[in-house]
């Protein structure tokens, strides 16, 4: 899922400083699961903004709603009335949600209240970590299901660097060395020989190096 975290309050307050009535739009999918922009976080942010503005003697009116997803037209269409009733929208979705609102409601100012951080999983309640770099050319079949692109601090594709110590990364000793994890896993699977395979350089044109990406499925079009 997409993982994010709320921006610092001061940054949010600065964005909406000139507005007297705003709409806070949450998202009930990824950012709700990572507790950054779901229903509860919308309410808490709304409350904090109201208090901050009361303190400055500049009270603000805030409408709130959290659609199931902020990244699909049919769900953001539900927000139309509230969006049109306000001067600006503060989106607590990921960057995709923000841009969905911008594209659907071109005349409306939309501010991001969340920093979209990475694609990852909840390791445990309250702890999220990165697992996928969305490179568009998955290598997990070669690396025992462990992504060296995001789990190796240097995104190395040909084994550990010289800084790997006792299975930990030299960049952050709290982080496991991805290549140690890959080696251990392939060893457990009895597939260490896979590491001797000579692979061509990775094609990064499917990643960010190839510009904005798009998938078109003619068979799925209406």
């Amino acid at each position, binding site marked *: 899922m997409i993982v994010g975290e709320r921006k*610092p*309050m*001061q940054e949010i*307050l600065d964005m909406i400083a000139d507005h007297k009535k705003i709409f806070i739009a949450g998202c009930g999918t990824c950012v709700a699961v990572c507790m950054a922009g779901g229903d*509860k976080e919308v*309410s*808490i942010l709304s*409350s*904090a903004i*109201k*208090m*901050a503005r*009361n*303190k400055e003697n500049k*009270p603000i009116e805030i409408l709130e709603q959290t659609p199931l997803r902020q990244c699909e037209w049919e769900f953001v269409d539900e927000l139309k009335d509230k969006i049109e009733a306000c001067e600006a929208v503060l989106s607590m979705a990921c960057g995709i949600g923000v841009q969905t609102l911008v594209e659907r409601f071109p005349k409306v100012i939309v501010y991001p209240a969340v920093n979209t951080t990475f694609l990852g999983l909840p390791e445990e309640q309250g702890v999220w970590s990165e697992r996928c770099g969305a490179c568009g050319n998955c290598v997990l079949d070669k690396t025992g299901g462990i992504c060296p692109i995001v789990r190796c601090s240097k995104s190395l594709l040909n084994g550990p660097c010289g800084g790997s110590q006792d299975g930990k990364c030299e960049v952050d000793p709290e982080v496991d060395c991805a290549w140690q994890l890959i080696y251990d896993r392939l060893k457990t699977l009895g597939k260490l020989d896979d590491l001797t395979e000579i692979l061509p350089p990775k094609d990064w044109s499917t990643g960010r190096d190839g510009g904005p990406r798009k998938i078109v499925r003619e068979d799925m079009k209406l």
Partner: protein
Amino acid sequence: MIKVPCSGKIESIHIMRALEEGDGVVIYACHKEACQFLRGNLRAEARLAYIKNILKEISIEEERVQMYYLSPSNGVKFTRTLSTFYEDLKSLGPNAGRAEE
């Protein structure tokens, strides 16, 4: 005073909404080792820390929210801590973030 089955039932938004309309919030929880739901009071403590951080970010005195641990039968400590909290709030003055009536 709002009774809840366990301090762990108190959500962050409950504290924020109360602060929007009041000068302070005090939470009474069971002693840390004595939660019959095991971690309820620890959850409340973590949520309180989260709220205090938000208050700090918006420059509202974080002392406006407090938490005390006491056993259900300790009326003396309840009265004493509530009086202390009340006096502390009086010295802080009205909550500037409170909505005007």
